């Protein structure tokens, strides 16, 4: 049976290239795996809010590529509710469709994965 893979995003979008690399990996993996789950925790939630203009800091604007997740059938996208609240945001401010998870629900989801990758 196919392994359940979870990708955890914990970094802000433009401070490093980590967020971009994680999204590249997620889109590539989606071609081989249909049980992908993507998690946004901590500063990772900043990847999903606002309209970024990465060109201002001489980077490539990868935020629109988040829309590709749906096209690639990556639909299990989870956001840590606590992280979102701590930073003063709500679900309707996210640029993609996602499910909010409480700390306990998040623990359960993470436990269900066969393999986890943290960015």
């Amino acid at each position, binding site marked *: 049976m196919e392994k359940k893979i979870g990708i955890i995003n914990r970094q802000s979008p433009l401070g490093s290239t980590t967020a971009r690399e994680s999204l590249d990996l997620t889109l590539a993996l989606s071609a081989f795996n249909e049980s992908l789950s993507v998690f946004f925790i901590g500063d990772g939630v900043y990847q999903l809010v*606002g309209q970024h203009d990465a060109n201002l800091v001489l*980077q490539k604007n990868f935020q629109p590529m988040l829309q590709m997740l749906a096209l690639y059938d990556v639909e299990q996208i989870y956001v840590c509710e606590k992280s979102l609240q701590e930073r003063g945001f709500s679900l309707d401010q996210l640029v993609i469709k996602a499910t909010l998870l409480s700390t306990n629900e998040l623990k359960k989801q993470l436990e269900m994965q066969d393999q986890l990758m943290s960015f």
Partner: protein
Amino acid sequence: MILHTVSESPFNHFSLQHCLERLSDDDILLLINDAVIIGQSTTPYQQALLALHKQGRLFLLEADLKSRDIDTNVGEIIDYKKFVELAVQCKSQIAW
């Protein structure tokens, strides 16, 4: 007079705290890179930042705010040119 720059997110690092604890009365604080998040988030340092704001000693870099689509409640928004002016104006600089 020292120009202090903080560049890390307040949620992942202690740079802001470390900097504020060592800020002298005439020093300047400039938030750059992920630290611009501080401008819109509620941290335990709100009072300290507000005090700096009132004294005109708190600045945030425009390119880092705009690229992240972040607004700020405190501080003066400056461009790279003003950043250079601050660096010249100050005797030295500390990057936290």
